[in-house]
């Protein structure tokens, strides 16, 4: 297997870092070599966060170059587009259309682009873009914090990269007691991914 480069784009506090931990944990359980790295600023919450996950037979660098991501998992529209230079042509893009305003857009110093504008940039780079209302779905299952795992379920289902048993054990390992509801959200993401596969 060639190395798979996965980029997770989020706003601090949305669970992007936790997702990269769970993916790395699951990848090791599935017998892969893995590296992750992140770019984050000094804020505890609220800044742009990019997490790089690389899975393969023998992975070395934690980061990868622009134009080399096989998948982008994005929890916010602007952050998805900010990370779009990293994706390969036709990479799998899962994007939650959540809007996280920043102080500059709230105070009207900058404009938050429309969903159409954001999606058209993503679709110009890839014909494999899926809008995933992960936060909404996770909230409907009483676990808004698990939106990241809904996304992961879809990713697993659409790529077949990580076996779900390995992911479930990783969720248990990383989240501990908090993991029970999260597992349900993960499974619901898998089901959604499977239905997309059937529709193709």
């Amino acid at each position: 297997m060639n190395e798979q480069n996965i980029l997770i784009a989020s706003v601090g506090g949305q669970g992007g870092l936790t997702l990269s931990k769970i993916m790395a944990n699951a990848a090791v359980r599935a017998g892969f070599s893995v590296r992750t790295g992140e770019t984050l600023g000094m804020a505890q919450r609220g800044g742009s966060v990019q997490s790089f996950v690389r899975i393969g037979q023998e992975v070395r660098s934690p980061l990868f170059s622009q134009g080399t991501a096989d998948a982008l998992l994005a929890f916010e529209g602007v952050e998805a587009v900010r990370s779009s230079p990293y994706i390969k042509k036709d990479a799998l893009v899962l994007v939650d259309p959540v809007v996280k305003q920043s102080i500059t857009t709230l105070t009207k110093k900058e404009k938050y682009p429309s969903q159409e504008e954001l999606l058209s940039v993503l679709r110009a780079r890839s014909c494999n873009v899926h809008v995933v209302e992960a936060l909404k779905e996770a909230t409907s299952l009483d676990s808004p914090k698990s939106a990241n795992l809904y996304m992961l379920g879809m990713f697993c289902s659409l790529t077949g990269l990580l076996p779900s048993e390995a992911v479930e054990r990783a969720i248990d390992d990383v989240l501990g007691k908090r993991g029970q509801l999260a597992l349900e959200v993960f499974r619901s993401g898998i089901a959604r991914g499977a239905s997309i596969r059937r529709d193709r």
Partner: protein
Amino acid sequence: MGNEAVALGVVEAGIGFVSGYPGTPSSEIIEALFSHLKEEGTPLRYVEWAVNEKVALEMALGAATGGMRSMVTMKGPGISIAADPLLSAAYCGVNGGMVILVADDPGPITTQTEQDSRWFAELAKLPMIEPASPDEARLFVTKAVLLSEMTKLPVFLRTTTRVNHAVGEVTPSERLGPVSEVRFERDAPRYVRASMAWNRSRHSWLLGQLAAVPSLASTLNLNRVERESEDRKLGIVTAGAPVNYVLDALDELGLECGVLKLGLLFPFEEKPILQFIARYDRILVVEETDPYLEMKLKALAQDARLSPTIVGKSEGLLPQVGELNTGHVRTAIEGCLGMAPKASASAEIPLKLPSRPPPMCPGCPHIGSYFSLLRGISRAGFRKNEVPIFGDIGCYALALNPPFEAIWTEHSMGASISMAAGLKAAGFAKPVVAVIGDSTFFHSGIQPLVEAVNKKLNLLVMILDNSTVAMTGHQTTPASETSDSGRSVQPASVYEMVKAAGVERVSRADAYEPSKLIQEIKDSIAQDGVKVVIVERACAILSKRKGDVGLYKVLPELCNGCDACITLLGCPALTVEGDKVVIIDEECVGCGLCAGMCPYKAIMRVESQ
């Protein structure tokens, strides 16, 4: 994570004593050790955060003097704070293995300077080794301990963010037996630096130990030829995280080049290095930040009368600013071999994206503190741009961003008070303010406060006491009643320390009650002497974890969309939907600050059922 791997390495190396001061990217080592401390059969006896890096290093030295294996951890700038004991430690040496872990941050990603701590090995005359991956970081802890015990010298384990914070698979190794007995025998010429004759003789001893390092280290296999090549055109010498970029770049380009990975950075193991560089016509040195290895290799080749062309940063092939990546290395290799560069993917985004300056957290007490400070300055009759606010290191430096755009400086730990005092002493006419957090105050803020009071300088100091080291992941401070390891400790009092420094006007305020705080700032800012306001309110993240929160909501019929709450506070729990302000329930901690800002009384507390 690399830091968790280091922690495992600490246990494998039989280290008993660990101290340090939190600092990204080093903090998770000690965090991970707290759980190893509770394991059965652990070699760990003492794992604690210290008040600063100097104290941490001196304590680790004390432990290693008694034969205990010890480690001290810090981020890059910490080694400057610990430099004084570091240089003396080289003269007395150690009995138990001592590892000084210093984590640099090329980028920089979270650090005030992009400093290259490799120079400290030369300055202190102490051996330094550097791993390239999380698993190697684990393995290198034991190697550092063995090298330290062979040479009787403290050994640097230097890491960078892409090793500390990289996640990767690890394979545990066998463990060294722990040290059981702690003992210390008096040996004044070795441990006392008050005799110049003794100091000269220990300096000679140090040079002798250092000269023995390369042959002793050869048994540890710290350096490795990663690739050999029949083609003699290009050899690459590299170390640490960049090793990965070199190997990835060669694979991407499909090239055969020799690659020598150095694990021992100081002193050089000269023979194998010379053998390697003699094989190639040209040597490219790949390293981050300063051209440290490059300068040393050039000198080494010159002394050995070898003639390969050695190139790197000095020739502009690689940047000295920012962290490296595979792309940089590919371009440098292409440059060395005269290849046409491969076209890279377009980085342009055809849409103007809004910036996302990192905000303070929802309900952060610093929001109330900075709002009150700016309001107090204005009520005292000064304009915002005439009263300098000297910032310090911690979450409260985020006040540089909108909406506050408050701090004028942020330098080293504790510099808020000393720089404010210096400006005032130089004759600055308007009032000056220093803002410092509780942990930073304990770390390096007490001495400048004593200095400012002693010299009767006029400044206002705001100590933001949120009962934690928030930015690095909520470590305890000396004011806590229990340490992070669970040890019962004697809490220090910020208030009593300020009083003991001789400050006459000390007040305590709550960040969630701005009116009192504003009044105190207004009344005291232009007064003579050092005035201190201690703002006490626990970090909102901690309060939220404890469930110690409430909830507010906006009554849409009263909100007229003036956005005063957002513009004045910038709390991320406030957003706009349509033309009304909305509070995001899961973000709100119920501090109530926004309710006080609303001219229309449209924000109300939600009473819990």
